[in-house]
């Protein structure tokens, strides 16, 4: 239940920001959407067992390692996307002095 609430909140916050003006806010929105996706992945693995997924570590209570592996790369990839979006914002200054492309009409 709790994870569903969190995924919903992150998705809502991310959506709101993505629809605002300016690339930086869009980038921040994508970070939140990324969080929503990774937490959804972990929640999909089940939140009942919470032991560390090490061999001989968690035993019967170990969490599912597969979604964790997916989520780990997803986190790093969303970092790459954030960095690229910010590079766009960085460059847009040379076009109109701001990251707000809509002011350029």
């Amino acid at each position: 239940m709790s994870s569903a609430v969190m995924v919903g909140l992150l998705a809502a916050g991310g959506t709101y920001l993505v629809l605002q003006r300016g690339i930086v806010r869009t980038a921040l929105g994508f970070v939140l959407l990324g969080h929503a996706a990774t937490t959804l992945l972990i929640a999909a693995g089940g939140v009942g067992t919470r032991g560390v997924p090490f061999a001989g570590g968690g035993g019967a209570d170990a969490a599912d390692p597969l979604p964790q592996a997916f989520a780990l790369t997803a986190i790093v990839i969303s970092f790459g996307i954030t960095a690229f979006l910010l590079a766009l914002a960085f460059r847009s200054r040379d076009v109109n002095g701001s990251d707000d492309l809509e002011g350029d009409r």
Partner: protein
Amino acid sequence: MHDDREAADVLLALVVAAPMVAAALTPVLGRRLGRNVAAFNGLVLLALVVVLLRELPGVLDGEVVTFSQAWVPSGPSLDLRLDALALVFALVVTLIGVLVMAYALRYFAHDDPDAVRIPALLALFAGAMLGVVLADDIFLLFVAWELTSITSFFLIGGTGKGAKGATRALLVTGIGGLALLAAAILIESAVGSPTLSVITAQAATVQGSSLAVPAVILLLLAAGTKSAQVPFHFWLPGAMVAPTPVSTYLHAATMVKAGVYLVLRMAPTFDGFMVWHVSLVLIGGATAVLGAWVALVQRDLKRLMAYSTVSQLGLMTALVGLGTPLALGIATIHVLAHALFKAALFMTVGIVDHETGTRDLDRLGGLRHALPLTAAAGTLAAMSMAGLPPLLGFITKEEALAALVKGVPGSAWLGSVGLVLIVLASVGTVAYSLRYVSGTFFGPVRTEAHHAPVGFELPALLLAAAGLVLGPLSSRLTPLLEVLGIQLGGASPGVKLALWHGLTVPLGLSVLVVSLGLLTLRARPRIEALVDGLARPSGERVFDRAYDSVLRTGASVGRTASSHALATYLLPPMAVALLLIGRSLLTVTPAGVLPVSPPLDWVLIALIAGAIAGVVQARSRIAAVAALGLTGFLIAGWFALHGAPDLALTQLLVETLTVAVVIVVFRRLPDTFARSGRIRRRIAAATAALVGTGVGALTWLTVGRNGRSEVGSRFLVEAEPIVGGDNVVNTILVDFRALDTLGEISVLLIAALGIYALVRHSELGPLGPPRTLGATSDAARGGEQYLGTGAIDSVILRLMTSAIAPVMIVTSLWLLLRGHDAVGGGFIGGLTAGSAAVLLYLSQGHQRLWQSRWFRTMPTVGSGLIIAAVYGLAGLPASGNFLAGGKLTLPGDLTVASSLIFDVGVFLVVIGLVVAVLRHLGQGLAEDEPVAARGGPREPSNADAPEVVA
């Protein structure tokens, strides 16, 4: 003997390949040889003429040379086949090619870039055209056919002043190319084989198929567009903007004959199929008449020749339509005759243009004095075109008339209609041929001409002389006619070629045609208005109108989706996603029991909700980033609560780095956000609420009710025994699903490259070299702490960094090494090392980082990906698997999993991405660059930056 045969078969492949190789070499040789490089290409083609002539005796005996090479599985195989028809065309392509190259030697100026470009493209074209005529696979024929269209586009001058004509030609022939592909698919599915010789042998199957009529229509479309038949003829005169060697080779002698070749090749398949015969005779006859009479009223010599070519192609098409052995054989020989006289004529037009500066008939005359050899060549060639004895053109015209008189078996009216049309066309032909000769070379001198070098005139003279020699020697061509008739028409034509057959009907018709032609030439001024009406509506204009309206429609469709606002692009996909979510919500019923969340979860979620609200509400950038960082740290805590220490650590590091990157970028931006309008905020809030509710509800309904996955449980038990790693998450990353990880680090590499390219190679101009100036100029930047350079001017920070950074680097290596068994791994290690780089940047400034030999973008990301890929390939020979794992034995009986090497690659790519951000986004503003204004857009500070429409 057998060995000889096989050698010849391989030579067949060489015939197609050699010109293409020559084309590739031309630019290289051209640097040294300049325009003389055309001679090299000419020699290559000459060698091919010799190769082909060696096959002539065998082919005249009815032999067929083949070459076959499987190429792509289940694709077209490289099947080549040389029979009499292919040999005639191949000889035309190579022989005219030799002379065109010789002509090009003198045509271009020394310093003209076309002097190398055009011969290179001409050689490539020759290879493609030889592919068309030698292909025994209908799809291979299609590929070569398209290649001729594309080379033609560039040869006409597709990117330069000839763009309009070249585009028309490309689109018209391109439509034909698609029709050919469709026809090929239909015929292949009717016969079950793409091999042309097999298709020909199964003519009855093709004709009996319900696909026969569509296939014929598509083939006619292909041949009609390529060979400039009515109503597609307009592209050929438009292509005359090309340099004369190109017009000579492609648009007179060879490429435009590809359509005629196609219908000749398919003639045995559709023999007796009335749709085929009727359409070819009518289209060809109409084209012949239209071309001849429009040619008569042209003032531009090149356009006159272009319409003349249209007319002659119509004659050949009509002959193919008759379908009798004599008609098919004589159509093929007329291809040769036409190539000889028309290439010569184009060359003479080029010489006249070159030496007088004009091609306008009203300004030309009397050039026989200044250009005697050109005049001789032009006159002989024009006589051949008009069908006057004793030239080769007379022979083929006579036999064509004879074939028309005999008519089409089974349809008397069709032969008669064809005969009337061709006689009418021939009258026009005689008239415009004589007009060219009398208007250019005879009469009063109107424009002075330079003398042409003999080498420039020689190719034209040789071609014209060939027509003169082959006329009286035409009996030597009888065996060729014989074998063509048998191979294409299934029977001997029963005709011996000769100048004199006695008083026959064709001879009478010839006399009539020549007399009427002379009368027409006299009456030309009076019939001009009549012919002008014939040329309307202009195909060019119809085509342009259709073309423009297609572009306009595309633009107006595009405009509905074109906006400066990112939200405009994002809303439609979001709306669709919402609809999909809504639909699922109605249909999904929850299965399984959701575990109850412990209270600590709810506390964490309350904090996260507050942090999200902070990000969303913040007006200043710094506040937003602080709230974002807080969100990330709380998410890391949530991961830790859910038994994911690796994730928690990764999230912490990534969040730290994200905040650092955002701060770094902010230095170039205003420090508050541009404020959205109220309507925008409301729409965004409503969308966000819907998305949040929908996603949350769907998560609650579908996710986490079934406990651990089967695969996950298996990994927990079997990971250690199989790959010897205790950290199951890491073993999944580097062993079980290493291919995914390889893809993911490729994405990181692309992001790093993107950042590098945006900053260093953008059309806005590169920013580098970096404009950071030193750690002390911060204060001058209006007190903004991070403006100016990367560095925080703090002694304490600098001291601490010099102590901590090495520890962090060592820690990162330790995390990397132990990752297989405990928390850590390439991603976490790389992020830790990246954090050390950030610390270094903050304490010592961008310049230090920039000058460092260790923190470089390309070497780091590149070597990382290469290491990962090489590791993947290394195991391939032994195990047959890409990215196969294993154990490495180190000195001292130490064994480690070899996937550590892969993790090193991951480690380096992650570091490289962080380095890319710091190096390229981390530079401050230049001394003279104003600090960005607060809030909202401002005028560009960089005056010479080009306007970019975002």
